[in-house]
């Protein structure tokens, strides 16, 4: 299976070549970035046929000796295929959108270099099989994101990026300290090997301390509630395409995927009920506080940032339930959020591109002049709120049914109330920005260019059509292998090592 390194090698090589050639030809970065992300999207869709098996690739040819892994291993199983498809499809749509959107900023060459480095880092995180490679790719993606948030060198972007960097640096410090304790405890860095050793060792306070360090570090990267301080400042100040990539893909891969992989597969969560309770508490807190803080916002992108916190809270709440139905609901909601949140950020970017204004109170009636943006925004908002038969309704229904099944009736009621609140504030955005009377100053506003429209239309179609993943034929290809990997817990070790 020699395709595995290509997911990391292709964007890295493309990122190293971009600064050299973009000095000579002005059109080079756009074309190169789009070709690379299209190639990666094709690769990830081709790999979908292998989603049921586990593949191990030993870099450098260092094979395991006596069953103990010796070198750096890249592992691809059902969960990795699921995340790879999300990352690469959203990345392709974002590069399509950036061709026109980034003409507002200077120097596209540097933008595409940083973007391809971030893509290489994200692909590497989901494909790595040992802890230190995981950390290195996490840092690559993180540093590229810090630089991209500050890309418009205005005062807001700089301040938001500084805050994000300090908090992200503390988080990376906690994660590295956790990896040091992890090595001290188990004597190996390979995830499958360590999971086997921990399951033999049982749960002692040292394992729980390492788990707490990882929990703090990755929750800071994901933006869960007590650690969300950087999110409402970083998402509005970044360019809209980068906000779409960060909220749709970044906080999922760097935060939620890392939490699932470490706590379910390496530590074996089923044996530690107190950790499941922590997930439930963090998820509920993020859901509730994120939704109520979003109600009072008048800045469009800041409202979307608080809404991201709330939806990630839904996913973590679903994983904290611990049943296979809950895991299915959490993964499906992850997929849905990765489709409609970039769509909404694209809409806000289109509004800024056309009118240069981000404040909701002073806009109005834009859907007469910008029909594509208005319609796709309506579809995206209804999908977040959970209106049948759009995709968001199915994932929220599964989460609520799983909560009722496992006995948390009060939390299920809270989830239903928060869903109604979500629908409320999104409809508020729709009313202020797109419907109503057209203001005088906006008479000359035109629709955005074609490439940006194509990205928005594709995402809108996906957010309607993903409801078909409830049918068993489609679910068996994409969602069921991922659920089997996460729900299987410690059988990850047997699949990787035993063969």
């Amino acid at each position, binding site marked *: 299976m020699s395709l595995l390194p290509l997911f990391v090698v292709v964007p890295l090589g493309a990122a190293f070549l971009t600064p050299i050639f973009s000095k000579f030809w002005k059109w080079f970065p756009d074309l190169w970035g789009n070709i690379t992300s299209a190639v990666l999207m094709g690769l990830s869709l081709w790999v979908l046929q292998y989603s049921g098996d586990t593949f191990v690739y030993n870099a450098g040819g260092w094979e395991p000796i006596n069953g103990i892994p010796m070198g750096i291993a890249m592992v691809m199983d059902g969960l990795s295929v699921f995340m790879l498809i999300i990352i690469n499809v959203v990345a392709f749509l974002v590069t399509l959108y950036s061709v026109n959107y980034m003409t507002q900023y200077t120097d596209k060459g540097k933008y595409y270099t940083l973007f391809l480095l971030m893509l290489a880092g994200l692909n590497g995180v989901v494909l790595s099989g040992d802890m230190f490679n995981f950390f290195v790719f996490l840092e690559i993606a993180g540093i590229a994101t810090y630089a991209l948030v500050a890309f418009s060198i205005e005062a807001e972007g*700089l301040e938001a990026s500084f805050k994000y960097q*300090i908090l992200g640096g503390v988080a990376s*410090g906690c994660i590295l300290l956790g*990896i040091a304790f992890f090595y001290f405890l188990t004597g190996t860095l390979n995830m499958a090997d360590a999971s086997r050793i921990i399951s033999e060792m049982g749960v002692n306070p040292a394992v729980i301390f390492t788990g707490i360090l990882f929990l703090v570090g990755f929750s800071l990267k994901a933006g869960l509630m007590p650690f969300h301080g950087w999110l409402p400042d970083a998402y509005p100040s970044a360019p809209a395409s980068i906000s779409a990539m960060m909220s749709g893909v970044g906080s999922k891969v760097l935060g939620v995927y890392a939490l699932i992989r470490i706590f379910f597969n390496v530590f074996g969560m089923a044996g530690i009920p107190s950790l499941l309770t922590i997930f439930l508490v963090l998820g509920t807190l993020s859901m509730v506080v994120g939704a109520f803080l979003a109600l009072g916002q008048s800045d469009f992108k800041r409202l979307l940032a608080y809404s991201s916190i709330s939806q990630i809270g839904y996913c973590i709440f679903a994983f904290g339930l611990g049943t296979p139905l809950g895991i299915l609901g959490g993964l499906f909601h992850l997929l849905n959020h990765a489709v409609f949140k970039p769509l909404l950020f694209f809409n806000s970017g289109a509004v800024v591109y056309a009118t240069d204004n981000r404040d909701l109170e002073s806009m109005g009636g834009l859907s007469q002049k910008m029909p594509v943006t208005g319609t796709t925004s309506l579809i995206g908002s209804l999908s977040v709120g959970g209106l049948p038969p759009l995709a968001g309704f199915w994932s929220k229904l599964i989460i609520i049914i799983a909560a009722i099944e496992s006995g948390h009736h009060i939390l299920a009621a809270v989830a239903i109330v928060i869903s109604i609140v979500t629908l409320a504030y999104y409809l508020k955005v729709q009313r202020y920005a797109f419907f109503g009377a057209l203001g005088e100053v906006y008479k000359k506003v035109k629709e955005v260019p074609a490439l940006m429209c194509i990205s928005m239309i594709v995402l809108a179609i996906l957010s309607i059509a993903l409801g078909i993943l409830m049918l068993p034929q489609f679910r068996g290809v994409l969602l069921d292998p991922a659920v089997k990997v996460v729900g299987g817990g410690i059988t990850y070790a047997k699949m990787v090592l035993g063969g």
Partner: protein
Amino acid sequence: MIVLILAILLFLIGLYGVLVKRNLIKIIIGLMIMEYAINLFFALVGYRQGGIAPIFTEGMADGVFVDPLPQALVLTAIVIGLGTTALLVSLAVRIYEKYDTLDVRKIRKLRG
């Protein structure tokens, strides 16, 4: 064992710097101290009693090697820390240009 506790103490001193200090440059130095403390801790985890440096040279003495895996990983972590610090420092220079102050309590344009 006592050196591991001292490395964790250095980590806590760096964390104090990030949380309490008001000047931007002092916050950056606190973050750097945290990263160095973690690298030191990680390199010390690999120590074996009475060990020698893990390199094959001609005519070397017999003995137990110190664990080489943390040393290779600390090398990578040091370079990652260098990249983070370079980015933070250039951001601090730009912020001084825009806001005319390095006091963290005055750089608060984004709120709400």
